[in-house]
């Protein structure tokens, strides 16, 4: 989610992270409602998947839909690797995510227990974008 915030800010249209869980909001991202609805259908609502896939394809095209499928599949794996290896959230992401974690109830997730840090004790990065290089 930190990357959603940072990338949308960099492109001049900050996303509304607090609206991530609101199905009626696009969260400030083009076609956001359709992207979120497709992801939800893919994970939780198989009876709606066909309809949501058709709507998303109509909006972003075949290549855009495939990009969404590719990303969705990757994060189905990434979430599981993170959960099962018990990794801590990296310092800069942790320190800069206090507000949206609280707004979205993320601190109540069971895997929150894996990160034992004090956000206030982490010095902010001078250049957050450069911290992205860690994730490659």
């Amino acid at each position, binding site marked *: *989610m930190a*990357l*959603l915030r940072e*990338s*949308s800010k960099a*492109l001049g*249209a900050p*996303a509304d992270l607090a609206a*991530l*869980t609101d199905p009626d909001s696009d969260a400030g*991202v*083009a076609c*956001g409602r359709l*992207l*979120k609805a*497709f*992801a*939800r259908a893919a994970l*939780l609502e198989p009876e709606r*998947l066909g309809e949501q*896939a058709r709507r998303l394809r109509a909006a*972003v095209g075949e*290549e*855009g839909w*495939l*990009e*969404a*499928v*590719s*990303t*969705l*599949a*990757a*994060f*189905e*794996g*990434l*979430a*599981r*690797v*993170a*959960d*099962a*290896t*018990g*990794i*801590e959230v990296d310092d800069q992401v942790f320190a800069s995510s206090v507000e949206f974690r609280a707004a979205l109830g*993320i*601190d109540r997730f*069971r*895997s929150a*227990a*894996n*990160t034992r840090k004090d956000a206030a004790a982490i010095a902010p990065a001078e250049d957050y974008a*450069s911290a*992205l*290089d*860690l*994730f*490659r």
Partner: protein
Amino acid sequence: MVGLAAFDALHERVWAALGEPGDWLDARARREVVRAVRASASCAVCDRRAGVASPAMARAEHEPAPLLAAGLVDVAHRLTRDNARLGRSWADGVMAVVGVGPYAEVVGIAAAVRVVDTFRRLTGRDPAALPAPRPGDPPRALPDSVGDVGAWVPQSLTKARANVSRALSCVPRTDTRVWRPLVDAHYSRGAEFASFTWDRALTRPQVELVAATVTWLNECFY
């Protein structure tokens, strides 16, 4: 742009790598992990466990796999069906019996299968056939370069990469031949990752919105 044919070719390479001896498991045992992941979809034990307040309240007697310890079968099932409720005490208990290396290898295989099977499902295809196993013995040793950095499993001691990027560094064959190629092709794509302007069919914020939604629905703190 990475098209469907390129993804299919990647997945064939990953599947071939799953058919090779791994870090701790031989190729036949790795194939059993793939089978266990898929069996979890219709597993009565997993169904029962989903309905109780704590996963520890349901006994983990899944359909056995002939070449896998029961604890590793449970890892494959829980990772697939109940990943939001994994806890350190459970993982430590499993690893005390089966070992940290086999645990991490099953995590990597199960996650990779989740990626490929999800992609094929959403693109309207049946799951790929089980990997064809090749003979050979795994090294069965942890790399010298890993240690305790605060996660449940040892990780690379260098902080040159984010924790998620080194999460499976204690099982390097699984990490470099199976897991990381998938993440790179499906999402991060090498040096492109450090840029907020992506030359893709979706903008970076659109991609990250999908990522954030999936992460949130999985109740993943990371």
